[in-house]
């Protein structure tokens, strides 16, 4: 067992977990945040993507113990109370959410992209979403939603 402390959406979550526990299972279990989805749990689908220390990562490919001391943002950290994050709102507006299982991962990948590059173009958006599987087949609507947010004038 390892005593693991991770800052998740601004709150420190501490728990003793088995050494083989992944960051994904820590988020869903110890932190009780089930917005981050367990898809393939093999690094291939992107559903478990979170932002760790500023970078989009697959939480199923990281041990919780590796993330000790890190800062993690999950999909629950996007909205400001009742107000959706612009990316969430754009996903709604563009009809980018069908079953919704891939959406938390897509949102976090998109947020990491726009945090680093607020005016990302279509190619960069496609590259950022390229490792995310959507079994409803809605890829275009998601890319459009991100493009919509990226093309807005920065707010002063």
């Amino acid at each position, binding site marked *: 067992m390892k005593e693991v402390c991770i800052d998740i959406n601004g709150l420190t979550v501490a728990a003793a977990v088995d050494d083989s526990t992944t960051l994904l299972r820590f988020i869903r279990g110890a932190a009780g945040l089930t917005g981050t989805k367990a898809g393939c749990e093999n690094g291939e689908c992107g559903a478990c993507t979170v932002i760790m220390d500023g970078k989009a990562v*697959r939480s199923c490919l990281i*041990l919780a113990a590796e993330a000790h001391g890190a800062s993690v943002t999950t999909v629950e950290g996007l909205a400001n109370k009742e107000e959706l994050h612009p990316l969430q709102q754009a996903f709604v507006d563009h009809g980018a959410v069908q079953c919704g299982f891939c959406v938390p991962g897509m949102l976090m990948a998109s947020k990491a992209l726009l945090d680093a590059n607020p005016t990302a173009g279509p190619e960069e958006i496609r590259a950022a979403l390229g490792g995310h599987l959507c079994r409803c087949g809605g890829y275009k609507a998601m890319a459009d939603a991100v493009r919509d947010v990226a093309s807005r004038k920065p707010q002063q």
Partner: protein
Amino acid sequence: MRIVYEKPATLEELFSLMKLLPEGPGVKLLAGGTDLLPQLRAGRSGPEAKERPILIIADIKRIQEFNGIHETDKGLFIGAAETMRAVAEHPLVRRYQALAEGAGRMGCLEIQNRATIGGNICNGSPSADSLPGLLVYDAKAVIISEAPDGTAPRERTMPLERFLLGPGKVDLRPGEALRAVVLPRPPENSQSRYYRRTRVKGMDLSGINAAIYCESPEPKAGAAAWPAACGLTGFRIAFGAVWPTVARARMAEDILNSEPVTRQSFERAAEAVLADMKPRESSMRATPDYKRAMIPVLIEMGISEMGGASD
């Protein structure tokens, strides 16, 4: 099998973990974990773990000696724990274009943010994305181990191509770790490209991949463009998934470098690779026939893009 995670802060701590006793725990080094975690989950953690009740996962990421991308007098040093994304984006790697492109094509962004160049090499994949670029730049592997008398760690350096022994197999002996790769500084007039063929455009492993490197003797004002003789020299070509390891196609390089490049010499060079290739028959990603068809295509793409093709 019980997994114990350790995060040594220094080489000394790492080496003391790595001292394998026959009856003691197995040790696996963890860098990015993007291959190791799926392997552990599938129960394929290698001979180190076999029939041992405990497997120590030694995370090397915070050990200084495995980190950093910087110039040295022997060339560009890239620490084994540097991520593929760092390699793809670092300004000092830009000169080594086929390497930067290969690292940037591997997996997807989230994988590149964690996966390391050391892991990409040591997993011994016959089509690892970083390896063709590394091999055309004559990269050296820097291998580190504890000194027998417990003083400064010992390093040995060998050509990276010889470090690759076979599928899943690299030349690391017990107690050794890959510390870094070092790439000799290429001439100013050199350039390179990385190509790969995958079943889908998104996230996939390469069915076949290649790096083509060449030098152009002069900035070619008014010089002919491929497919005429385009003045490129100094070819180096590496293929993945054509032999049991990523390897240099020296038979093709010798032909291309012995005379001005023409369509005839290009065709003979491609033939020489086809005659020597040993593709795995059972590959799920590309059949031997497909690879045979792609070998001349990829070589010609390199020549034509770097030789200023007219069309």
